[in-house]
C-alpha cells in the first residue's frame, strides 16, 4: 500500500482501494476479537463491580465461593511461580539443545532430534498431566524432593512436607511442555547467524566454544528472548496439565514443595458449576487478570528485546 501510494505516476484505482480496505479490515480483526473478549468478560464481572474494588480483588488472598469473598493473589502467585520456574528450567536446556543442533550435531542426527522435538510439541496437555500425576509426582515425592531437602533444606524454597504435587511438579511439567517451543525457535534464530561471523571468530584464533559464546550467541540474543516469550505465553495459559499436578489449593507458600493454584486452572475448574452470579463474576475477573498479566509480561519482554537489540547493535 505504502509503496503504491508513494508512487506519483499511478493514481489509486478502485481495486487498489478495495484491496487496501480489505487488508485493513483483516488486520483490524485482531483488535476487534481482543476487544470483544475484554468487553464480554467485563460484562460478566458486573455483579462484583462496585461491591469489590479492583485493587482489593487483586490483593485479596481469600477465595471462598460460599461466602462470596474473592481474591486473586494466590492464583496470580501460582501462575507466576510455575511459569518462571518453567522458564528457568527450560531455557538453559533449550539453548543448549539449539546450540548442539546448529553447531555440533552431525548432519544425520539433526532430523532425528528435530523430529523428537516436534513430537514433544504435539503431545496433548492432558497426556502431560497424566504422565505428571502417575510418573513425575511419585518420582518427585520419593526421590527428588527428599534429595533437594537434604541438600538445600536450609532454603525456604525446599522446606515442608514432600507430597510430590505442587509448584515444583507444575513447573517441571510446564518446562517440558514449553521446551519444544523455545528450542525450535532458538534453532531457527541460530541458523540465521551469518556463517561469516563464526568464521571470523575462528580465524582470529577463537576456540569453537569461544566462537559460539562471543560471535553466535550475542547475535541471536534478541531472537532467543522472543523464543522465551513464546514459551512464557504457553506456560501462563496452560490449564489441564497444571491443574492435574499442582494440588489446587489457593494458598501462597514460599516452598516449591507446597501446593498452589493458577489462574487458568481455577477458571477451568470452577466455571462450569459456578451457580452464583458473583462467583461467575469473580472467575471472569480472574480471566481479565490473566489477560492483563499476559499483556504486561509481553510488553516488558518487548522492551527487553528492544533494549538487547540496541545494545548488541551498538556493540556490533
Amino acid at each position, binding site marked *: 500500500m505504502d509503496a503504491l501510494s508513494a508512487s506519483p505516476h499511478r493514481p489509486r484505482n478502485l481495486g487498489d482501494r478495495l484491496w487496501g480496505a480489505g487488508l485493513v479490515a483483516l488486520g483490524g480483526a485482531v483488535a476487534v476479537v481482543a476487544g470483544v473478549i475484554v468487553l464480554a468478560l467485563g460484562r460478566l464481572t458486573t455483579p462484583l463491580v462496585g461491591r469489590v474494588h479492583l485493587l482489593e480483588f487483586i490483593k485479596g488472598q481469600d477465595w*471462598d*465461593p460460599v461466602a462470596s469473598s474473592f481474591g486473586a493473589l494466590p492464583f496470580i502467585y501460582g501462575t507466576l511461580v510455575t511459569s518462571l520456574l518453567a522458564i528457568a528450567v527450560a531455557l538453559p536446556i533449550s539453548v543448549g539443545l539449539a546450540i548442539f543442533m546448529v553447531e555440533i550435531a552431525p548432519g544425520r542426527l539433526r532430523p532425528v532430534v528435530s523430529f523428537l522435538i516436534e513430537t514433544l510439541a504435539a503431545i496433548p496437555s492432558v497426556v502431560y498431566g497424566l504422565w505428571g500425576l502417575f510418573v513425575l509426582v511419585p518420582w518427585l515425592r520419593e526421590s527428588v524432593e527428599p534429595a533437594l531437602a537434604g541438600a538445600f533444606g536450609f532454603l525456604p524454597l525446599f522446606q515442608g512436607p514432600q507430597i510430590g*504435587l505442587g509448584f515444583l511438579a507444575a513447573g517441571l511439567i510446564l518446562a517440558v511442555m514449553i521446551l519444544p517451543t523455545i528450542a525450535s525457535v532458538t534453532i531457527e534464530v541460530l541458523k540465521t547467524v551469518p556463517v561469516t561471523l563464526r568464521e571470523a571468530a575462528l580465524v582470529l584464533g577463537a576456540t569453537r566454544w569461544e566462537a559460539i559464546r562471543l560471535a553466535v550467541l550475542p547475535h541471536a540474543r534478541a531472537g532467543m528472548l522472543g523464543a522465551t516469550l513464546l514459551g512464557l505465553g504457553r506456560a501462563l495459559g496452560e490449564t489441564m496439565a497444571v491443574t492435574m499436578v499442582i494440588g489446587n489449593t489457593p494458598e501462597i507458600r514460599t516452598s516449591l514443595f507446597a501446593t498452589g493454584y493458577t489462574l487458568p486452572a481455577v477458571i477451568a475448574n*470452577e466455571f462450569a*458449576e459456578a*451457580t*452464583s452470579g458473583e462467583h461467575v463474576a469473580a472467575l471472569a475477573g480472574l480471566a481479565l487478570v490473566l489477560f492483563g498479566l499476559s499483556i504486561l509480561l509481553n510488553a516488558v519482554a518487548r522492551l527487553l528485546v528492544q533494549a538487547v537489540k540496541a545494545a548488541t547493535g551498538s556493540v556490533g
Partner: protein
Amino acid sequence: MKRLILAAALALAGTASAADKLLLNGAGATFPFPLYSKWFSEYNKLHPEYQFNYQSIGSGGGIQQVTNRTVDFGASDAPMKDAQLAAAPGTVHIPTVLGAVVVTYHAAIDTLRLSPDALAAIYLGKITKWNDAALAKLNPGVKLPDASINVVHRSDGSGTTNIFTDYLSKVSAEWKTRVGASTSVKWPVGLGGKGNEGVTGLVKQTPGAIGYVELAYAKQNQLPMAELRNKDGLWVKPTMEGTSVAAAGIVMPDDFRVSITDAAGKDAYPMASFTYLLVPQDQQDPVRARALVEFIWWAVHDGQKYAAPLDYAPLPKAVVRQVEAKLKTLTAKGQHILVGSANRK
C-alpha cells in the same frame, strides 16, 4: 462423477427428512449424562420422530440456559436456589434419578467406619492421623496405621462436592459456619483433584489419602468405600438401594427442591441426592412441549429400568407419583399438555 451426484442427492434427501424430525435441546449436569444419553437413544428407537441434543456443560450452565430459555430443558444436580428461581420464574424441577457420594481411602484397612463427627473432623483438619483415638473407637479390632491422613477433595465445582458439603453442614455445626455447602467451597485442608478421576488418581497415588467420589464411579473402579453411620445410628455401606431408601424417607415438598443428605431410615445411606431436569411451567410451543413432557413421563417410568445397570439409583414409587402429578400441571400457552388419563402414548 455420477456416483458423486447421487451421493450428494442422497445426503440432501437425508437432511430433508431430518428436518421433519423434532429436535429437543437440553443442557446441564454432567453427572447424569451417561444415563440421559441412554434414555435419548432408547426413546429415539421408540419414537424416531424425536431427537435430543444434550450438552453436558455442568449444572451452572444448565440453570443459566434454562433461565435464558435458550434450551427446551436444563439439568442440574442441585436444586436451584431461591435467588436463581426468582431470576427464572416458573421453572419446574423434575427429579429423574438419584446419585450418592462415597468416601474412599488409601490405607491398609478392610472396612473403614466413619461417624459423621469423625468425617467432619478429618475434613476440618482436626483428625490428622489414621490411628487417632476417635477413629480407633469407631473401628474396634481394626489395626489403624500410624500415618497422617492426606485429605483430597474435588478442585472443580461439582454436584458431588455439593452433596458432600451439604451432608457435612448438616452433621457438623462447625462445618456449617466455617465452610458451608456449595459446588465449590473454601476447603480448610487438603489437595484438590479434577473430577472423580482426578480425586481417585490422587487417592491412589498418595499413601494415607482419603477422598470422596460418586458411588457409580467408585463401583465401576472397585474403590474401597467407607461405611457411614446414618441418622438412625446404624452403619451402612454405600449402595444404590440405600440411596433410594434415603429418598423414600423424606417429606417431599411440592417443588421437589429438597436435600436428602442425612436422611432418616434404618437402611438410608446419608450422602445422596436427586438430580433434576429443569423445565418451564408454561412453554411457548405446544408441539415441542408435548414431546418433552411425554419423554419425561417415559423417563420416570419405563426409563427407570436403565438406571441401575448404569449405577444410578431409581426413583422411589412415591416420588414417581408426585412427578406424575407435577407433569400434569405443565402447560403450553396456558393449555394443559397432558390431558385426561395418565399414560396416553
